[in-house]
């Protein structure tokens, strides 16, 4: 087996003038000419080269690959394989960019009428920065070449994304490419699309060398080169009546996509759909654009656009409450979406619309109202955020994915065959629970096949909070079909008599779901989960350090298939949201991450952890397995605005995160 390394661009933007290789024998070097198929990483747009040809558009853009039998022999390889450039002027400002990856417009009612009928119009601008997923296991793959074939093993979330990228890059037919997920040490979206790039790299080297190639990033390379959360600038102009009823919601969203499109169009999509928050308003205008900058491409990270826009709307709501002299809870109660209301895209909400129940529960449990009064004028503050999160792919996305799941009868029970990956969220357990219950067999009689594209159907990517609600539902259908066929027999009996059989189910949209991609209107998601966070914190007047003291997270998720694991998602997502709010900052200098070490990219340690009071409410979603909606992403949407609102309560006006002590220094009101 050989080890691979990547030679990356050292400038943010420019033309490659020369590639210089000064290596002894025993090294294999590959460039874009070694790509048999198309030189791009197939995802949505065919714009991201696997290896740069003539131009580079960001620092750390891959240009050359090197393989060697000794991984230690690759240390310092950048001194022997160098690339010269003619640098051009980079642009780091998404608002000054002339390349737009995606533009989206959402219109409901007539915004000008809404603004005219408002007693008061309140504006605000809110900003979020990059956030690194920081899975504790870095990206890594092993590519194993065969005769006209390629197999890739990797730490990844979406084997079929990798599969598609390899097919395009290597110009192989789909049955000649195989992708196997290995045990994965965290993903959070950071291994949704990036592994395709890495797999392509390892495959190019493996193909050239005729030998397996292993490529594991060290933490520095992973931090510098792989995707981050899209930074955002969100502007609100909101018209209300004097008593706090929303009359007009006008929002502008700008997302920084980095150098190539990757998933920016979809991040923007989710961002704009959630931008108005869980509130009712007849007149809505939302404009969003995802722009190119000369920085490493941004990508998927838990929440996927919604943490950015819900940060803005919830921070804005508290400023509105303050300006109108209305209690922040009351403002939410007046405007929160209820069953029967329509969202910004005109989607009618069913009985499982739970904004008010989660708000009330969180307010009660946290003693919000009393503390809001008592803490005023102290170093402590308490703030809340109300938020929601659509499960599954947006609009027609699930129909396009056409996901499949299979269930195979075995001698002792059943085996699950899905492309959904276990990345810590409990996929295997939760899917096995659904099958066991629907089939009426013991949990231990269900096993889950390794995620290997040779054996499992394409269940779609493990993203978008869809693994339970969408894929779990497919498995429930498979199990019920299998149960019908088994009749009165146990799996063992049936197997002995007739041998194995496999049932497959394919996604069917719930009846009545309608989405218009042109007008960006209609049923954006099959279902929404709802949540409310309360954060009580203290600001140290000497150091401006912020210490969260108590956190409350109430989430309505349809049905908690595995309550302990659902709590785990809520606690974990909340902690990431606190990091997003307070400490996690990517310091960019000349288009490069300057703090690319774990000592300088700050996530919470055990001593930073505040207690989280978690409560789960259940309002079943008719089309989810046993009523379940999605839960994985929603918990990260709410903590940041709750923190900012608590800071406002104790005297700090902060409109961009992270709210570091350095920023609080000048934010005192």
């Amino acid at each position, binding site marked *: 087996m050989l080890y691979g390394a990547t030679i990356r661009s050292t400038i943010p933007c420019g033309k490659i003038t020369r590639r210089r290789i000064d290596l002894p024998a025993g090294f294999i070097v590959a460039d874009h000419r070694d790509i048999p198929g198309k030189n791009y990483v197939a995802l949505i747009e065919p714009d991201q080269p696997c290896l740069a040809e003539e131009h580079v558009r960001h620092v750390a853009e891959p240009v050359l690959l090197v393989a060697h039998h000794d991984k*230690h022999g690759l240390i310092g390889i950048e001194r022997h394989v160098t690339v010269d450039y003619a640098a051009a002027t980079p642009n780091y400002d998404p608002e000054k960019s002339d390349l737009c990856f995606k533009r989206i417009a959402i219109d409901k009612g007539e915004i000008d009428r809404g603004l005219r009928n408002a007693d008061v119009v309140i504006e605000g601008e809110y900003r979020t920065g990059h956030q690194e997923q920081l899975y504790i296991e870095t990206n890594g793959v092993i590519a194993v070449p065969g005769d006209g074939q390629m197999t890739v093993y990797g730490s990844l979330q979406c084997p079929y994304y990798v599969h598609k990228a390899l097919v395009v890059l290597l110009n192989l037919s789909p049955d000649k490419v195989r992708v196997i997920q290995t045990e994965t040490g965290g993903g959070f979206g950071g291994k949704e699309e990036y592994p395709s790039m890495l797999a392509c790299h390892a495959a190019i080297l493996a193909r050239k060398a005729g030998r397996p190639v292993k490529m594991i990033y060290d933490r520095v390379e992973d931090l510098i080169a792989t995707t981050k959360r899209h930074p955002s600038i969100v502007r609100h102009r909101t018209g209300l009546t004097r008593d706090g009823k929303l009359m007009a919601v006008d929002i502008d969203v700008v997302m920084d996509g980095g150098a190539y499109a990757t998933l920016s169009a979809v991040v923007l999509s989710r961002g704009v759909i959630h931008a108005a928050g869980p509130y009712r308003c007849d007149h809505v205008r939302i404009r969003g654009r995802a722009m190119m900058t000369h920085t490493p491409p941004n990508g998927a990270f838990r929440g996927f656009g919604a943490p950015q826009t819900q940060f803005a709307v919830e921070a804005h709501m508290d400023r509105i409450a303050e300006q109108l002299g209305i209690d922040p809870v009351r403002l939410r109660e007046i405007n929160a979406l209820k069953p029967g209301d329509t969202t910004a895209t005109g989607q009618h909400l069913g009985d499982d619309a739970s904004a008010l129940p989660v708000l009330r529960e969180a307010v009660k449990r946290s003693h919000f109202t009393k503390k809001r009064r008592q803490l005023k004028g102290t170093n402590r503050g308490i703030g809340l955020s109300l938020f929601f999160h659509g499960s599954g792919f947006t609009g027609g996305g699930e129909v396009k994915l056409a996901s499949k799941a299979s269930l195979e009868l075995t001698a002792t029970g059943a085996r699950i065959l899905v492309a959904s990956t276990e990345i810590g969220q409990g996929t295997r357990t939760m899917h096995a629970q659904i099958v066991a219950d629907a089939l009426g067999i013991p949990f231990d009689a269900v096993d889950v096949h390794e995620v290997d594209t040779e054996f499992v159907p394409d269940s779609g990517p493990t993203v978008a909070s869809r693994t339970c609600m969408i894929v779990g539902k497919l498995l429930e259908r498979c199990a019920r079909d299998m149960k019908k066929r088994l009749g009165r027999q146990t799996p063992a009996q049936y197997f002995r008599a007739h041998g194995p059989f496999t049932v497959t189910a394919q996604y069917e949209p719930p009846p009545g779901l309608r989405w218009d991609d042109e007008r960006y209107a209609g049923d954006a998601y099959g279902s929404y989960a709802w949540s409310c966070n309360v954060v009580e914190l203290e600001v140290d007047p000497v150091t401006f350090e912020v210490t969260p003291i108590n956190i409350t997270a109430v989430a309505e998720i349809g049905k908690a298939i595995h309550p302990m694991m659902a709590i785990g998602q809520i606690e974990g997502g909340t902690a990431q949201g606190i990091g997003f709010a307070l400490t996690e900052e990517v310091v960019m200098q000349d288009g490069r991450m300057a703090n690319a070490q774990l000592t300088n990219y700050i996530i919470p340690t055990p001593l930073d952890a505040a207690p989280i009071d978690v409560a789960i409410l259940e309002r079943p979603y008719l089309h989810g397995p046993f009523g379940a909606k999605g839960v994985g992403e929603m918990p990260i949407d709410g903590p940041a605005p709750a923190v900012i609102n608590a800071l406002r309560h104790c005297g700090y006006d902060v409109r961009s995160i992270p709210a570091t*002590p350095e920023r609080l220094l000048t934010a005192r009101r």
Partner: protein
Amino acid sequence: MPARVEALTLERPRSLKAALSMLARNPALMPIAGCTDVYVSMQFGTMKPQRFIDLWSLDELRGITVKGDTLTVGALTTYTGLIESRHVVRRLPMLVAASREVGGVQIQNRGTLGGNIANASPAGDTLPVLAAANARVVLRSSQGRRTVPFEQFYTGYRSSVRRPDELITAIEFPAIRGQQWWRKVGTRRAQAISKVMIAAVRGRDVRIAFGSVGPTVILARQAAAVLQTGGSVADAQAALLTEIAPIDDIRSTRDYRARVAANLLAQFWNNSR
């Protein structure tokens, strides 16, 4: 992995005497002990791969003793060793406090007091304590022994009076008469490089030292003099700001460090007697 390991060599003297002879013959040898910074520095390019001399097994450099008023701490004492020493707990609680906030337990079990001094980082967690405590650094070479007052040890950014053939063997602390004070402001509650740090003693003499606000630890003599002679906290803060030289870096800003250093000074004075 940092540098190619084959490019490194490690001398392993069996005694202090042998170590000192090796250093006399080859002063380019880099002494290492707990190694909590060695691999990190090599990886991030702040230290070239080179020939090392391993002090870790030299028990002569361990041990904490009290003789009369003087507490002597062996250079190889780890942070855990400091935390668990009843002598240090009784006589130098501010050193225990500083040790508790170094990294996490894993770092505390390996990092040494001598290493913290030799590494000479402007953010070294024990350094303001040593300055405020008026400690003395014991240096030995094959030529002999000398003691340097800690406040004269550093000559600039990451440079000291230690000659390449010398080893730090122990640190001596005089009795401290007065209340000890220490506070570190980091990026989080553990595993944090400090942004600003204060160590102080308030007795008949006032000694105040700051870390991370200059190229090396700063003994704030003028600020201390103001307070000692009955001046106001505001005047002491003004004096402090002329003594420190904080910068902007990837962790923090000059303005923050200056402001918080002044606040830490006030907090110390207002909460001590």
